[in-house]
């Protein structure tokens, strides 16, 4: 009989020796949250810079996706809950030291903002649109007048949303793969990159697409840098961190991570975007779709692999 298992108190089904609690809903939500954060940030960014007219898809059309992504993501989160009827308790709690609390309140704020943003452009996007009620028209006029101010708030919350999708994981101290300060910025950059990719897909203006591709290239380079940094940090860390890194460096996640995330999701689209900027003809949807695919795979692999990494035994 192995007494030490009972004494240590770590013989908990689905938690030790490894987590088996988060399935497809969580990475899907993290992906959609990052995507919405990216789209909303750049919509706000170009509004603040006064270039809304030149960046039609970025400011007007792509934000249509944001509330849809947020609602679908929240739906996935809700699906994941064990006790679904208690979800409202997240909103009776404010805990500054809990990323879940931060996330719940951030979503509580940015989801309506994204809806208001889209609503304020409805008449421009769909000329037949009619609000029917006078107070709605008045509210719309007020939003349009204060668009720059709202854009600032939206940008700030988009950054918090993007970082939070990573911090949510890095707050798990007992999971070495997640417990690194790089995860927040990494998820932020990755989310922004997927947001840009989605906007590129929607944009019909070659000039706008070119500008977005340039920004996306910068984000891809930063993301690659952060990934390298992540592994350097692990390899210079404790034995548990080294073991976490070895899941990706010769372990079971090596092929999926390096092929699908790094090569297909980052390096290859970066090469394609560079060729496109150099004047070669590249199918315009291809790099964007690859980036979206890579972003999704990244979250699935990080959530899956992180649950396996551990301290004990």
């Amino acid at each position, binding site marked *: 009989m192995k007494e030490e298992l009972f004494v240590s108190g770590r013989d908990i089904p689905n938690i030790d020796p490894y987590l088996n609690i988060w399935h497809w809903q969580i990475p899907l939500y993290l992906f959609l949250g990052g995507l919405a954060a990216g789209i909303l940030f750049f919509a706000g960014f170009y509004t603040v810079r006064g270039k809304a007219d030149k960046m039609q898809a970025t400011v007007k059309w792509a934000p249509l996706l944001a509330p849809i992504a947020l609602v679908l993501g929240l739906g996935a989160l809700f699906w994941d809950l064990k006790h679904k009827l208690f979800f409202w308790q997240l909103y009776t709690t404010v805990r500054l030291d809990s990323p879940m609390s931060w996330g719940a309140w951030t979503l509580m704020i940015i989801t309506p903002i994204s809806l208001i943003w889209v609503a304020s452009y409805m008449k421009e996007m769909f000329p037949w649109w009619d609000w029917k009620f006078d107070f709605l028209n008045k509210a719309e006029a007020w939003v349009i007048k204060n668009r720059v101010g709202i854009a600032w708030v939206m940008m700030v919350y988009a950054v918090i949303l993007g970082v939070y999708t990573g911090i949510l994981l890095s707050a798990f101290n007992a999971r070495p793969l997640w417990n690194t300060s790089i995860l927040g910025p990494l998820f932020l950059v990755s989310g922004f990159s997927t947001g840009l990719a989605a906007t590129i897909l929607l944009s019909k203006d070659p000039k706008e697409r070119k500008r977005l591709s340039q920004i996306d290239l910068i984000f891809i380079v930063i993301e690659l840098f952060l990934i390298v940094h992540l592994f350097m940090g692990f390899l210079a860390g404790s034995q548990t961190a080294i073991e976490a890194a070895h899941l990706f460096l010769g372990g079971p996640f090596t092929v999926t991570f390096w092929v699908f995330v790094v090569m297909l999701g980052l390096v*290859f689209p970066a090469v*394609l975007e560079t*060729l496109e900027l*150099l004047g*070669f*003809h*590249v199918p315009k949807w291809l790099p964007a779709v690859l980036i979206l695919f890579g972003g999704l795979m990244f979250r699935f692999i990080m959530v899956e692999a992180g649950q396996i990494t551990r301290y004990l035994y």
Partner: protein
Amino acid sequence: MNKHHSKNSEPKYINPYLGGVLLGLLVLVTVLITGRGLGASGAIKSTVVTTAHVFTPEQAKSNAYMNKFISDDHSPMYTWLVFETLGIFLGGLLSGIVFGRVKKLRTEHSPKITSKTRLIFALIGGMLFGIGSQFGRGCTSGAALSGTATFALGGAVVMFAIFGTGYAAAYFFRKLWI
């Protein structure tokens, strides 16, 4: 390598002799990096086995040949050949972009035949190639290219068989091309 080719209707291909040398060097690099030669038919086999296993798991398992590749904890798709084939596709795409062949989808064929005829014969040819590669334990790249690179007699036999048969059969199918 010219970006203006993207507007040209005439696609540009690599010089076959240069291509052959590069292919030989590729085998060297592949052996150096992976410790194995090149191959492509294995990826098709993996795909066929996986598809069969998804739709008719019982039949796939009762088939002596397919059963070798099926295991509970390991998908047949999780082999280096599948990833290599993915790379072939992407490398071809990259070359197409650089040499201006990606502008639009086209079926290349002799002026004497229609695109439809070309596609039908390509499909038949591909199927024969797939069957033949299983008899020969590898395709042109697996058995012939990687085989001869290691001075394997079987590789040389396959190489001569492929090109000899091709030379002999070409007479009957020449009208598909010229």
